[in-house]
């Protein structure tokens, strides 16, 4: 379990939004590259080598494909490289394509990271904050779905070994699936009755239900959340005042370097690095204690 995933769900959510909002809405290469850098580093910390290897096999070709696609369809830009079917393929469109890919890849990677970090317990907690009933429903559904899947597999395998329906014919297979499906639905109703009994037996439905969670907001959670929000505010301040404005067409403009822009870059960089800082802080602390033993 990574150190970052031990943070409070709300802190994780704040971190997720603080990293994604600028990455998706601010068209500035510095922001986009920072986001990519942060996501790659974070992923390399929380995933093992094998998954990273298979991920590279996916994200690099995806990156190239997206980068190639843009200049084929967008012909804006003052520097034509060559003409294809009478349309210019321009340097600006190529650059724009590359940075779009940077943006999309980094967003995908962040989503992947946070998919690992925010597990179902955290999701249930986040929903339950506002709607306690919904959180119980979600939790029950998350229990029920794998049960239903297993039941489907068992029934369908039993029907297969009964040899009732020929497996060579598609219509028979569909028929079998329908039969199995309807029986699984019947089973799930039966199961729901038992679940309801079990809930009643443990006093569900009595007035004054409380909502327990294993998560506790610690001082570290609060500090990190505040840091996140402060950084996001500064980044957004830069964006809303137009200090981060960057354009690709018709010619690639210069990277804004006003003091506010630099401050925005830095604060976004901090946002992107918080996960890695949290992770490595724990690793360093651990090594330190080990060295003392």
């Amino acid at each position: 379990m990574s150190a970052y995933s031990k943070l409070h769900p709300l802190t994780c959510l704040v971190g997720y939004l603080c990293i994604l909002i600028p990455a998706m809405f601010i068209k500035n290469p510095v922001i986009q590259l920072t986001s990519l850098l942060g996501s790659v580093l974070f992923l390399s910390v929380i995933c093992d080598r094998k998954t990273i290897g298979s991920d590279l096999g996916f994200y690099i070709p995806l990156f190239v494909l997206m980068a190639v696609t843009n200049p084929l369809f967008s012909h804006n830009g003052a520097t034509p490289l060559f003409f294809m079917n009478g349309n210019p393929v321009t340097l600006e469109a190529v650059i724009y394509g590359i940075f779009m890919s940077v943006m999309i890849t980094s967003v995908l990677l962040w989503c992947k990271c946070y998919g690992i970090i925010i597990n179902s317990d955290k999701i249930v907690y986040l929903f339950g904050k506002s709607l306690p009933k919904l959180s119980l429903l979600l939790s029950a559904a998350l229990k029920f779905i794998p049960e239903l899947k297993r039941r489907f597999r068992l029934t369908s395998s039993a029907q297969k070994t009964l040899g009732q329906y020929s497996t060579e014919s598609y219509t028979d297979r569909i028929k079998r699936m329908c039969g199995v499906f309807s029986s699984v639905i019947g089973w799930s109703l039966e199961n729901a009755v038992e679940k309801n009994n079990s809930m009643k037996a443990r006093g569900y439905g009595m007035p004054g239900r409380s909502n327990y969670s294993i998560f506790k907001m610690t001082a570290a959670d609060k500090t990190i959340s505040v840091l996140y929000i402060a950084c996001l505010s500064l980044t957004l301040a830069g964006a809303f005042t137009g200090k981060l404005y960057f354009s690709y067409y018709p010619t690639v403009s210069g990277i804004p370097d006003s003091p506010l822009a630099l401050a925005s870059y830095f604060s976004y960089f901090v946002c992107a690095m918080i996960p890695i800082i949290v992770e490595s802080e724990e690793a360093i602390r651990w090594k330190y204690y080990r060295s003392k033993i």
Partner: protein
Amino acid sequence: MEILQIKDLSFTYPNTDSPAADGINMTVNQGEFILVCGASGCGKTTLLRLIKKELSPAGNLKGEILYNLDAKGFKETASAFDVGFVFQNPDSQIVTDSVWHELAFGLENMGIPSDTVRRRVGEMASYFGINEWYHSKTDSLSGGQKQILNLASVMVMDPKILILDEPTSQLDPITASEFIKTVYSLNREFGITVIIAEHRLEELFPLADRVAVMDGGNLIFYGSPEKACGALKDNPIFEGFPSAVKIFEGTKDLTELPEGYQCPLTVRDCKKYLNANFSHLSGKEVKVISPEPANPVIEAENLYFRYDKNLPDILRSMSISVCENEIMGILGGNGAGKTTALNVIAGAEMPYRGHVKIYGKKIKDFKNNSLYRNMLAYLPQDPQCIFVKNKVSEDFEAALAALNGKNQNIGSEIERISEELGISHLQNMHPYDLSGGELQKCAVAKLMLTDPKIMLLDEPTKGLDAVSKNKLISLLRKLRSKGMTFLIVTHDIEFAAGICDRCAMFFDGGIISQSAPNEFFSSNRFYTTSSHRACRDIFPNAILTDEVIGLCRGNV
């Protein structure tokens, strides 16, 4: 102090004539361990649900149930939290997806603030040894862990009375006895009143303070377990009593016992009793007629199987051969891969190395489901999976129609088999409304419609009471006499000893030993029947209670 009083309790379900509980009177003392037993459908579950008010079935109720939970006198009601209830199926009573949430669920319903919940959940998790899987998903737990979780999430609410309705019927024997030990220690260490309904009497009998035996809605016996043994000698329920009791009752007329000699309940006491009274017969053996080698019909050679490339092998060089017209049992620990082995032999999974031959023909050469027509049938662990329609008879018809086309005389074929298995009266029932034993029979009947030569059974005795188990044994014997071959995977040692011609031990991905049951079980010291454990000093190869009684009587 009395904690529960049941006075003249009668209960009739709507639209039925005969009462499910009839004139029951019983009192339960604080801290008692009560075992409720009786054949399926005797009214055990009805009684237990009536005691737990929140689960009271709808119907016509007469009489009273009174609670005295706080020593302030009897009351008609008890709060949902004072009476805890653990159900039969480990899976379907779990409500939430996380272990910690499941533990906290009851406390949340009580409206307890978070800090208190944290403390009580933590305490319970430590006591039940849940801390290691506290953050796990409930779905990833084993059956035994699930049932422990269910017990813990009831106990966390601090109930005064704990009711358990066949809690171990879906568990394997080792997990089940661990579960029972946990319940027993709750009773001994915390003084919680326990009322438990079970078929597994071998272990519970010695633990119970009082036994309540029900039959047809009546409470026919309520008293100490030692007294129950003598009193119920002629009742069919006696079949399920511990081997020690059966051996004692079958042989006590041969001995001169002092007045008031207590019936032995445990293997230890039975061993003492046998050694004291029958040591003069020492060394007598059961004559074992070893079956003549017959033509092998299932041959599996060097099977290797794994579910995924990255997962370890479940089967490693497994070989087995089953002869024609024989009942072969595969025994082995939980999660060892026995079910997987059966799946591979049934052709539901493909081994990545090795092959299975049925009647000398490789499984992959059976084209177009011909393997499952007039050849091989497979009864999975949960016989409900066999049924997909709303009526037993509809399922039978669909099965026959799919197999033979419409031209066959479907009705008469179904009638013939239903009569043979004694399930004609169940034809119009919904499969979910059948009891365990009835469902098992109907499932076998559905398999019989395909007219198989070989039948594979996976844990056929799971959840069955002793009477149904005996019926299953005689059913399988009858089918074998008609030339069928059986391969049975089971945990149930007594059942395997009673029915198999040969037993095989499955361990570490393969079969490590196989022989006839008398030899198989008498060479095991721990993994063997309780009768054998009791008599091994005197009768080295007797494994069944009947064999022990027979040897004592000298008529084997």
